């Protein structure tokens, strides 16, 4: 009996190519995903780089060398856009992280009803971004939005205030909406990280008489540092690339006040059909984002090591 089972098994083994070397098997497994990415992302990326050296529109293409880049270098407007994009990213990411940390701490508190609160935080993350933006479009309206309405009732403004019609307020309104979209995810990741912190650490500190604030500062924060690190990079990339929110709220206006690099690229390439100039902008985005990520990772690797060494 045993013998026949053994031989059967061996036969099966041979059929299934058990002897497949590990590296060949691994490449068979990642191959399809690699190929897909190559066609849908890598090739278009290469194409974008090629187009960035062209004067290209609906009519055709003509090689112009670095002219598109030279134009960008000289353009004061483009410099302003870069500065604005980083300001947008810095502001929005900081707010997401701070709100996320506060939110997660609150939802982590052992109070009745917290299971419900956790669910209530999620909707902005789950629904299509475009739909959330329609809601905000309504809120920001001067005549029938609740924000302007409340301000009028309280006597802060005399007449209707159109949040999206003024340069400053449009920019900060877009930031608020972006924060609104991004905060739930950050909150949930922080919350889960907080729940992963071993309880005995808190108990030991509690026995030693450490205050809540002290435990938060000296246990919670260092313990969840790796998640804070990865979330801040992830949020930074999302925010840098955030397109739909700005496009639906303001289309980059008024007078370019909310035009970030990604919106500028879209406007140039898709709205105005200047494919070459648009591609040059896209390449600048890739370079900026790539450099930023590398510096960030390098810097935060150190932070991680620092906190990691204290842990074990």
């Amino acid at each position, binding site marked *: 009996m045993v013998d026949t089972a053994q031989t059967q098994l061996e036969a099966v083994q041979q059929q299934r*190519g058990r002897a497949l070397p590990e590296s060949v098997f691994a490449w068979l497994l990642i191959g399809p995903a690699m190929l897909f990415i190559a066609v849908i992302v890598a090739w278009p990326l290469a194409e974008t780089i090629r187009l960035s050296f062209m004067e290209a529109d609906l009519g055709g293409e003509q090689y112009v060398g670095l002219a598109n880049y030279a134009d960008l270098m000289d353009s004061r407007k483009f410099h302003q856009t870069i500065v604005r994009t980083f300001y947008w990213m810095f502001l929005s990411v900081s707010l997401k992280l701070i709100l996320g940390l506060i939110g997660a701490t609150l939802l982590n508190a052992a109070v009745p009803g917290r299971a419900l609160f956790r669910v209530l935080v999620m909707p902005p993350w789950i629904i299509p971004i475009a739909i959330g933006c329609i809601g905000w479009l309504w809120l920001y309206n001067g005549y029938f939005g609740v924000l302007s*309405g409340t301000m009028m009732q309280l006597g802060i403004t005399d007449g209707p205030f159109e949040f999206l019609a003024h340069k400053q307020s449009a920019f900060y309104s877009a930031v608020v909406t972006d924060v609104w979209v991004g905060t739930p995810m950050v909150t949930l990741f922080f919350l889960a990280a907080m729940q992963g912190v071993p309880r005995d650490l808190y108990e030991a500190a509690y026995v030693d008489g450490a205050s809540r604030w002290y435990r938060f500062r000296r246990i919670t924060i260092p313990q969840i540092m790796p998640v804070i690190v990865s979330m801040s990079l992830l949020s930074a990339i999302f925010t840098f690339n955030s397109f739909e929110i700005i496009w639906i709220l303001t289309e980059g206006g008024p007078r370019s006040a909310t035009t970030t690099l990604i919106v500028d690229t879209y406007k140039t390439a898709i709205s105005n059909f200047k494919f070459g100039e648009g591609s040059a902008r896209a390449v600048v985005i890739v370079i900026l984002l790539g450099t930023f990520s590398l510096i960030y990772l390098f810097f935060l690797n150190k932070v991680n090591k620092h906190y990691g060494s204290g842990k074990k």
Partner: protein
Amino acid sequence: MMDRYSKLQMVGIYFAITIFLIFILLPFFEMFMASLRPLEHLFRSPYQFWSDDFSFQAYRDMWVTVPLLGRYILNSIFIAGMVTGLTMIFVIPAAYAYARLEFPFKNLTLGIFLGVNMFTGAVLLIPLYRVLRTMGLLNTYWSMIVPGVAFLIPTGIWLLRSYLEKIPRELEEAAFVDGASRMYTLRRVVLPLAVPGLIVVGVAVFIGAYAQQFLFAITFNQQRELQPLPAGLFEFIGYQDVTWNQMMAAALVGVLPVMIIFLFLQKYLVAGLTAGAVKE
């Protein structure tokens, strides 16, 4: 005792939670209020918080104003579902390879996958448009599915990999010693154990696919019947007037199915997503 709060602290915590939730839920509340107001009343100025002619009329009228609304809602779910299914087909084997196997260029290729995370479709729209045109996919469901899959594969690999790493190796080794092939081990030993992780990653991919349909839809698809909800909603902005109240009603009803599904799955999601994130 450590978790006990004084009365004052409790009040403070609830107060802060309330403010936080008001920020999160205010747009939904306002959308709901707007959906209840008759159109001619909507633009009444000065702003009124409460009015006595609230009605659910918009929830009936919206199906007439935009006859394809039901189709849009289903399209959204269909596209996100297809994206999720396809993404998982690509992600499962790849994530397994990165979690378990040693092979040349492992770190480099993983880095490339993660690098894709840095782009959004918006950067690559022009050439992507040409690729899709060459493949004859423009103005089909595929024009919205294919880019979605490509941009979600990296996230999927990243999340699932950390999940698979947690499954004890011994089980696979035992199967291998017993003579199972590599493929057999993956299919019959690893995957059944990874079901909770697969659900989590699947839900996360679905959310990503569902939330970000707008851009691909407005750029790659001109077929009205194929549009997903976020694009279809803009049909309420007509030539004559904007039926805001119906648009809000449609938006709320449109996301309801996914919200309900999500309610059932949220427990797994929070536990699982974080299991992946905490490690790295």
